[in-house]
């Protein structure tokens, strides 16, 4: 049975190309992907996760306002009884030439299970999700997940 994951770009961010590629990759890897598209609010993520009984929420943000857009997101998930959900965030998460390590720590502190930068290959996220959702590996996997994530 395919596992359901919610995918979307948060806030007023309209960068759609990344999630288009991710959707296709997760789909090809056998997941049931619900793509909410760009400019998705926190509420929409929570509603979709509830409605579709999702096991993971994948948040994308490219334009630099991720921190402001994600404020209170995990509290909202917890209120909806989704406190245990696996949550990933990826993209260009800060404005400017940030220190990737600091950025990762900041978003982990906000509650995200894993934090990915914009160099992430879809395969890395897929492999991470297999680990986190305890899905047995299939032949289709290619790159091992990076050590640091």
């Amino acid at each position: 049975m395919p596992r359901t994951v919610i995918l979307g770009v948060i806030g007023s961010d309209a960068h759609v190309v990344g999630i288009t590629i991710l959707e296709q990759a997760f789909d090809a890897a056998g997941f049931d992907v619900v793509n909410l598209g760009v400019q998705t609010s926190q509420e929409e993520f929570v509603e979709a996760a509830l409605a579709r009984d999702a096991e993971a929420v994948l948040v994308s943000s490219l334009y630099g306002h991720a921190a402001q857009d994600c404020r209170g997101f995990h509290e909202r998930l917890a209120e909806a009884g989704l406190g245990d959900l696996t949550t990933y965030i990826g993209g260009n998460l800060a404005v400017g030439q940030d220190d990737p390590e600091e950025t990762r720590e900041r978003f982990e502190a906000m509650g995200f299970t894993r934090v990915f930068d914009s160099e992430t290959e879809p395969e890395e996220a897929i492999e991470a999700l297999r680990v986190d959702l305890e899905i047995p590996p299939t032949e289709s996997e290619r790159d091992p997940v990076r050590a640091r994530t």
Partner: protein
Amino acid sequence: MVRDEKLSESELRRVADDLRGDWPTAEAVDFRESVEYHEALPPSKRFAEVLESADRPLLQPRAGVPRLDDQVRLLTHLLEDGRADLLPTTIDSYTRDNEYAKAQEGLEEARETGEDTLNGFPAVNHGVDGCRELIERIDGPVEVRHGTPDARLLAMVTFAGGFQSFEGGPVSYNIPYTKRRDLAETIEHWQFVDRLAGLYTEFGVRINREPFGPLTGTLVPPCIAIAVMLIEGLLAATQGVRSVTLGYGQVGNLVQDVAALRALRALGEEYLPDEVAVTTVFHEWMGGFPPDEARANGVIGLGGATAAVAEPDKVITKSPQEFRGVPTMEANAAGLRTTRQLIDMLAEQEITLDGVDDEQAFIERSTRCLVDAVLERGDGDVAAGTVRAFEAGALDVPFAPSESAKGAVLPARDDDGRVRILEFGDLALSDDIRETHAARLDERATTEQRPCSFRMVADDVDAISEGRLIGRPREGES
């Protein structure tokens, strides 16, 4: 249905009065006084004149930070160390969403923490005085660059604030930039912006308007981009705009890029009324960049070389830090200088490429198909026709996040690296044109021994960031 008609002055005034309530700084906007303010600006700050009288491609970066002093410092650096000819002020994303309260929050946070918590300059929040201070402290022409579907208040404030150039348009700042904005409404909003620019123009302040050519920046077929440029140019002209800069984003194939820029200029001059001064702007590669500054410099180098051959009036440069995030001012200036060096080394060389004329003819023919389809659907009215054409998918943009576009078009590169169309959806291209696209992509499929598919498109999307132009299958794949 929205129509391509000139807004009356009373309508303009009514809307302007309505908008005044949207944010406190709007109160300070006074048209007559602003015209006088513009008249007092020195020639070096008159955007349209500087651009239209240039005898070589002018360079302009993108740049915007939340705080005023920082923005002055940034633009001064780009002027002095980057030798930019034209300057930008890039607006933050909340302002683009008309979320002035959120922008205010970000601005205050920026002021407190000293960090750039916004991805641009919130001009509405800075208000007329803030904008004028910026214009006064910068010794060059400055343009508002943004991505705002409803830019009416932004235009009111920034025009009053002394800016003489304004990027965007109802299609180019809706379809690639937002999800749920109604296209007809966006056209109305931009009729206001254009009418306001037109009014300034009538009072002797020629505001330059620049439709955003690159659209989604990702493998946009030239005919689609140019069709949108013509539509927005026509809409602006109707409202009295007399200085229009049509844009185009590099696709990376030298012949196709040169051909597209020539087609853009030729069709722009043909379609737009004679009283409009048409200029062109070339955007260095707008898609995903390599995650490596050295390789990014290679991409910028190809952009500069292409500009040198095609000779647009203006070039929007990229920085080697494009991949990672908003660049430091040093990196931004570096992108300018790398581009300048290439253009100036190539400028005096006569470079004539085979195949440009054929490709240009093909692009022009395709663009005419699209624009004709728009006009037909609007019974001659470009505004109504645009709405209907997008509804029907007769006009469409690849990777469009907007619900106002079908988003059914899928582009892919052919064996020579030119961007062709793989999935047309209902795009209004004639059969013979479609066949040409299909034939070129079949050649590639044969070379690669794999079918044309989304896999190919995805590979093309990543190709430049991975150090090549065409997304050939990697070893072991097919």
